[in-house]
């Protein structure tokens, strides 16, 4: 069984974000140990680093190596390694906790495209915290009196978080949405 995976450009030219199913590696951060196939690439100096992000494994090649040449071998090594998720060891026990993973997902979503969308409408979204598979955010700027904000929150923010963290129970907002109480809106005390 080959694990579905594809690369997307990373933040650095020698870096590729390999998109994997979000429930495959249940931790974030630089793993304490990786399966042999990837380990060998790290050991022989071709790979500089392996970092697990929500729904992605970020691989950075060492200086002097290029993806066009190394790509196929790295792809195979990654696929072999992903076939053995139990052999990946989180950096710490905490890195595998649901809070840490959910916080990473929420941060990523708010910093990414969805956050860009909110900011492009002169609003702001701040992550206040995560607890028990729920995310607490604060709305600011033009969001306060935006009629479409429930729509944006459920369709965009919540959906984006759930795609990377399928166990998500709900998204809570502070201050409370005015008017009718919305589902989940009062679940976490302000």
């Amino acid at each position, binding site marked *: 069984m080959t694990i579905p995976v594809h*690369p997307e450009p990373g933040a650095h030219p020698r870096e590729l974000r390999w*998109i994997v199913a979000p429930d495959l590696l249940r931790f974030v951060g630089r793993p304490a140990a990786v399966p042999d196939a990837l380990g060998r690439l790290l050991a022989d100096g071709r790979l500089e680093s392996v970092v697990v992000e929500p729904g992605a494994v970020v691989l950075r090649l060492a200086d002097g190596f290029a993806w066009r040449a190394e790509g196929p071998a790295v792809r195979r090594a990654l696929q072999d390694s992903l076939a053995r998720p139990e052999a990946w060891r989180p950096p710490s026990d905490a890195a595998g906790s649901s809070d840490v993973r959910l916080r990473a997902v929420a941060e990523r979503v708010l910093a990414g495209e969805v956050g860009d969308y909110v900011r492009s409408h002169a609003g702001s979204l701040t992550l206040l915290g995560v607890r028990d598979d729920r995310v607490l955010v604060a709305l600011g700027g033009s969001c306060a009196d935006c009629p479409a904000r429930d729509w944006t929150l459920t369709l965009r923010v919540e959906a984006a978080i759930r795609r990377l963290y399928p166990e998500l129970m709900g998204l809570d907002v502070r201050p409370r949405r005015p008017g009718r109480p919305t589902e989940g809106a009062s679940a976490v005390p302000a």
Partner: protein
Amino acid sequence: MSHDHHGGGGATVATGLRRFALVGSPNSGKSTLFNALTGLRAKVGNYPGVTVSRYEGVATMPGGAVVVEDLPGTYSLDAISPDEQIVADVLHAGDERRPTPDALLVTVDATTLRRSLAMVAQVLNVDLPATVVVTFGDELAQRAGRLDLAALGRALGVPVLGVPAADPRAVDALRRHLADVSAWERPVLPPPTDPAETRVWIDSVLAAADYAVPQRDRRTARVDAVLLHPLWGSVVFFATMFGFFQVIFTLAAPLQDAIEALFGLLGGLVAEFVTVDWLARFLAEAVLGGVGGVLVFLPQIALLFAMIALLEGVGYMSRAAFLMDRVMARFGLEGRAFVALLSAFACAIPGIIATRSLPSARDRLATMLAAPIMTCSARLPVYVMLIALLVPAEATLGPFGAQGVAMFGLYVAGALAAMATAWVFGRLGGRRQGALPFYMEMPPYRLPRLRTVVAAVWDACVSFVRKVATIILTTTIALWALLSFPLHDAGRLEAAGIDPTDQAAVAAYTLDRSYAAGLGRAVQPVFEPLGFDWRVNVGVIASLTAREVFVATMGQIAAAEDPEDPGTALAAMTVEDGPRAGEPLFTPSVLASLLVFFMFALQCFATIGVLRRETGGWRWPLIAFGYMFALAWTGAFVAGRVVGLLAP
């Protein structure tokens, strides 16, 4: 009709401009996009050294003009047919023989994204900048599918633009995008080519692009339930084919009358205002008679190509091929060969070109050699003229006109003969090479784009008119000269007992001693057994360039004998030489021989040229000419004898 559209030459699109190549599977909206970008200004030529025609056109962009090339539709760069091979070759930057595109536009049908990504994966391995153009996004939404184009772009590592075919704003956005190729993102690491890795890469990309599969197109399912029904499907198929020919023959008639009236008017003007006798005769006989007699078929050609483009665009052609596949299999062919042979009803050339979609070289050759036997529209004027001589207009067979039945019979006979030919050549070429797979996509029914239909009709009409203005005009002028010279002085005429003031008698004398008559008599031994005389021989020889010339030639000869009423003169012609001298020339048996001769003989320079191009040499066109002539002569001989026995 045997025009040379898609023919050689003409591919004179300016060089030095930035080139974009359109790559994509069949039915992915590639040609629609091409037409939208280039308008109706496409140039058609062919690739040097190979036999596949190339379409390219100039598109105006914000940053200046660019060349857009429409590559043949393909499902894979792992080519198994000649036109797929050309795609693989054009995308190879190292090949010096043809210009390499500067960038690629990969068209992808949003409703078949899973399959299309396999091809995208291959194309992104080519070291050229690429943009993925997602078509039919509107249809995806209608069928409750979903696709995040931005996420698809991130996953593929190249720009992704949604361009629904009908949306001019999207096309404009694409034009602006084409202006700056250097800004196009290139994949850091191309997709895998290993089968298992490609499979999971596609899964992963689809998931990342939040792709939701469209529901089955309910309209298509409902229509298919009828059109592909074992009983009703066949009924609809035959009704469609019947309607196809009805439209071509009945709808064209008033338009043809109008063209005839126009030429009649021109003839009147010539008679009235051109006082120089030989010039008036030249204009009336050679130019108006020759060209007008052929140009009359323009409406039929336009309608025929419109019908084929409509059936193709709506998606019925692949259904027809599906229904006919079993029948075609009997003749050793496949369903798609049916589409090629159906096109050959229009003209052998599009039929021959349509064989490029056949992956098997053996099937392709067999179909190419059979296509010229299908009753093309160039035979139509010949059949019309000969049937009018053979069958009285008022005769009926049951509720149908006997002339129409005779015409239908000729079409059926031509089709059967073509199928039999394909079967024989399939057998001959049969060293059972590994059988290539038969597969045929069944696209959803879609409204054909008017522009695509217009482009097909325009292309066909322009080529036909060009052919009339070149091959046919030249031939008729040359024939006119051969039939009108040498001239004889008064002394010579008197010596032969002709009154030099009796114009009709002089014309008949000149004709009988013309260069053409000499030529016609020289080949008489060949055609004697068929009952032809030198005038028919001249017509047959002249029609080697293009079949319609036969009508023009016989028209010229008849007009020379009786300028007032050439039709009656033709019917009343008598044999001039030999044992049958004085008897009527066009007896039922001679007419039957002529009909059968024209059914089989390869009298078409353009077809021979295309055969040479498509088979890459003179061998097959010569074989085709030889076997078709043998069939024609033998068939004509037998038909003449049989009819001679039935109707002495």
